[in-house]
């Protein structure tokens, strides 16, 4: 068994073999998901709780479908983080939930490190569905699966990640993953949305789309949050689109067969031109959504196997003691 982790908190702690094992298994689930009967029993009898301290429709739906297709009992808990005293609720909610014996806990939280804190307090497997600006591991895994299926490999590719790098957990997880798989990562964006130390990350940093996209195999666009559009980080939406939005002219600098990705939801006309987003020859944005369900099924199944093995070992130790 290549996948050893107890929780999926980030890509940083995974080895290349662990990443590959998730992707290999996810490939199988892509096939399953395309059939009429989409059921597997890998998680049957297990309880999965989706706990989202930050709003998300897409990711939560993806995790819910993934769990249900594997036969888990899935429950969604929307925790409005603004209406409660956050810190207390995080630990207290975790302990409360823990007492209900969940097996898989899927957590999104607005603060970096919060999911890892929570994982220390519970007895089940925890999946990070995004913590602050830190990591969003299943997004990086689904991006990797999408790239691997389109390009046939994950190594020796040139991948340009463009836009709001500074605030993006998707960028961080992708940088970890693609670097571990031995691809070249470029970061492209305005200096106000680029960490000042990005050059120390083992990536190439560009402030110009034409240079950054030159001969790229993959162009990964990031969402620009609405609250960052007006004056604070960039002068205006239209200036941003003019300089950093992906349009056919800028994409022409990439390789002819370069694919275009976006973690969604898209701001058409801000970071990406509508015609590119809809171009079925270039855009794999809908594929990413499909891969998302498969990757989450694979990740949850691998974690559940480790959880069961862990529990079996504990039980056998107990019986030896007795």
């Amino acid at each position, binding site marked *: 068994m290549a996948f050893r982790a107890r929780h999926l908190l980030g890509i940083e702690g995974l080895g290349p073999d662990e990443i590959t094992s998730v992707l290999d298994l996810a490939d199988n689930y892509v096939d399953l998901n395309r059939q009429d009967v989409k059921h597997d029993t890998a998680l049957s009898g297990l309880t999965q709780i989706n706990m989202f301290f930050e709003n998300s429709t897409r990711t939560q739906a993806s995790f819910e479908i993934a769990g249900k297709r594997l036969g888990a009992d899935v429950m969604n808990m929307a925790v409005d983080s603004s209406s409660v005293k*956050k810190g207390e609720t995080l630990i207290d909610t975790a302990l409360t939930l823990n007492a209900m014996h969940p097996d898989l806990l899927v957590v999104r939280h607005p603060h*970096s490190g919060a999911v890892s804190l929570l994982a220390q307090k519970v007895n089940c497997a925890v999946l990070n569905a995004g913590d602050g600006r830190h990591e969003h591991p299943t997004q990086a895994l689904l991006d990797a699966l999408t790239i691997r299926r389109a390009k046939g490999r994950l190594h020796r590719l040139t991948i340009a990640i463009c836009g709001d790098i500074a605030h993006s957990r998707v960028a*961080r997880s992708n940088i970890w993953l693609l670097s571990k798989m031995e691809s070249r990562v470029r970061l492209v964006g305005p200096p106000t949305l680029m960490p*000042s*130390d990005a050059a120390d*990350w083992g990536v190439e940093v560009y402030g110009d789309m034409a240079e950054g996209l030159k001969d790229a195999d993959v162009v990964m666009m990031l969402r620009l949050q609405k609250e960052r559009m007006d004056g604070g980080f960039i002068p205006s939406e239209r200036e941003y689109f003019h300089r950093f939005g992906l349009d056919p002219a800028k994409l022409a600098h990439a390789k002819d067969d370069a694919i275009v990705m976006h973690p969604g939801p898209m701001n058409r006309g801000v970071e990406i031109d509508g015609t590119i987003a809809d171009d079925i020859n270039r855009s794999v944005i809908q594929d990413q959504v499909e891969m998302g369900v498969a990757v989450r099924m694979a990740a949850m199944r691998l974690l559940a196997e480790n959880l069961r093995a862990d529990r079996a070992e504990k039980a056998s130790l107990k019986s030896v003691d007795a």
Partner: protein
Amino acid sequence: MSALLFRNARLIDPEKGIESLGTLAVRDGVISGPTGMDDAEVVDCDGKCLAPGIVDIGVKVSEPGERHKESFGSAGLAAAAGGITTIVTRPDTLPAIDTPETLEFVRRRANEASPVRVLPMASLTRGRQGREMSEIGFLLDAGAVAFTDCDAFCANTKVFSRCLTYAASLGALVIGHPQEPVLSDGAAATSGKFASLKGLPAVSPMAERMGLDRDLAVVEMTGARYHADQITTARALKRLERAKDAGLDVTAGVSIHHLTLNELDVGDFRTFFKVKPPLRSEQDRLSAVQAVASGLIDIVASMHTPQDEESKRLPFEEAASGAVGLETLLPAMMRLVHAGQITLPGLWRALSLKPSDRLGLDTGRLAPGAPADLVLFDPDAPFVLDRFKLRSKSKNTPFDEARMEGRVLGTWVAGTRVFSA
């Protein structure tokens, strides 16, 4: 009255800058010289170090307001166990110490409960709000040894300059916390590779230099006596050096945590390593160590800040800042001694002599006539720190389970033993 004779001691004399094997006599709570009387009680030091007790500027005792975090009793016991004979308390309590009446409360409680000396500081502005100045004159009369708004940077330069002008006329010492407040707002870490990969909101180390630049300009304008509580970056050290060269009445301190830890120690979002200002890069840490050794940084302090478990068991951004340090100040500083980065007399200049001088105290030296505030310690004794054995009510130390060297064997305040190992 009583007489004591410390025999066979490795005497650490920060005033003369030397250490030597010898004898120290104490009579009536005061150091009397190298020879004692026949009736003296003898303390055989067995070749261990005997130094002036530590004077720790900037200790947070959570009275009034949060006595469950730390009281004068628990802080005093922790200080005694850490070789600290004078704690200089911060006014950032609930309420802030900004009137003679609240200061009187602190003094009364301290005298009742603490085995070591307690000298209170008062806030520079009312409620540490940076709007109206405190009653600096009354507070001086009531015994305030310095004026500080602690980590609340007084952003209104007009208010700040008036406070310093007024303080200067009374000869009062003002302690600043140099951080540009808007730039550092919301920051939980120092900007750099570590903070950005962890996704933590971070502040540029430049914010410290900007804050110090502002304060130094006001000092130049008003002629006030000024001490920067913590200088932790190489950039700000250059400005400090320039101000000292220009003859301004300026000193600076640094916390033990910024001398012995760096930003990477935060690791997997460990909130016990969240302090103010945030831990810095290794280069900045080394610059600060160098500055203590050279005397550019005058004073080393614990910046003791008790926090309960609840305020630390939170996501890193939300968790409270600060670490306890009274009992770990001495052993942690020994790391620098053992690394050959500073000598024992040089270290005690920063721990005892300079803070005493800055506050106009006669402690901090081994000279005849000085109060017999002393610490006997073994600089080499190894141990593993267990945070639950700390005497502080709060256990938020970043040194939990750390291997340390340096144990306090005994502490005396005015010739009276207040701690024995």
